[in-house]
């Protein structure tokens, strides 16, 4: 099959592979050590899947904010995203 119409590039392929790996790891984590939903600082019940979604969505906005105020490259934003994601998994 010819997928040239999708305009694949190495960075976007890495981006999607990283998301796929994250989802796969979450599934394995869920099977190995199932977790009940818990209430964190946001005061609503979240599963690890919810926390991953909140991390990813928030990270997208952190990157956009960084681009708007500081421009490319996004290394600083990526560091912020990592801190944000760890905080979400720990406290949300």
């Amino acid at each position, binding site marked *: 099959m010819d997928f040239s119409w999708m*305009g694949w*590039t190495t960075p976007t392929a890495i981006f999607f592979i990283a998301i796929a790996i994250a989802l796969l790891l979450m599934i394995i984590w869920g099977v190995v050590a199932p977790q009940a939903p818990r209430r964190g600082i946001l005061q609503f*019940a979240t599963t690890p899947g919810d926390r991953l979604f909140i991390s990813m969505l928030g990270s997208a906005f952190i990157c956009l904010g960084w681009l708007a105020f500081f421009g490319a490259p996004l290394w600083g934003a990526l560091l912020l995203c990592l801190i944000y994601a760890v905080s979400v998994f720990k406290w949300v």
Partner: protein
Amino acid sequence: MKKTLNQKAWFMVLPVLLLVAFSAIIPLMTVVNYSVQDTFGNNEFFWVGLEWFEEILHSERMHDALSRQAMFTAIILLIEIPLGIFVALHMPKNKGFWSSLCLVLVALPLLIPWNVVGTIWQVFGRVDIGLLGHSLASLGIDYNYTQNSTAAWFTIIIMDVWHWTSLVVLLCYAGLQSIPDAYYQAAKIDQASRWNVFRHIQLPKIKGVLLIAILLRFMDSFMIYTEPFVLTGGGPGNATTFLSIDLVKMAIGQFDLGPAAAFSLMYFLGILLVSYVFYTLMVNSEGQGS
């Protein structure tokens, strides 16, 4: 009782997964790929990195379209939600001929396709042959939605209110019907005023459906395209060029696929965020209610 472990059910999900991949995931991946490249067609792409995102984030045109969009959504929510509740409260409560008639009449605008709604209001608002336009002109009001941006906004808002308030009415009516009579009887014993009945019985009981109504109306109005496109085409000037109209102009009119892809991703993220917040609120309010 011993449960048997059967993982075959996962195969039942497979058709949905394939369908979602084909209709949503693969197109979304393509949009992401386009957003970091420039193309002139023929599947030839040139890497530009995050340039389109920076351009869109600093584009005055996009800021204006976003402001118009936010204003439109805020106005129609401020009108449609209270109006929908008001109409639902005044519809016949008992099941019978009148309540059925009211429901059918209220639901009628929802059955009309969006492009037809745009065409109806386009004709309705015309000064030469339209009932609304001609009547307003007869009263001496300077009304021309093709030349006056206030008139264009007025027409689009009235059109949206006419088309979609019914959805809010139907949802609120369903919520109100599910309130047991005992609540009203208790309120009567306490001699509660009409306002107190609404504030302490009806409003808390319809909170769940009201959140669904707000979510649906937010998403629909934030993505509105067909009706204003048919009615005003985004004009006069850019007065009614909302985000989706501008996006289509950029992607199809100018064939700027890269910036349009970056723009649509940001648009998508915005809607995803608000929808997630509403969804969480909704699920939590249900949890609290039960």
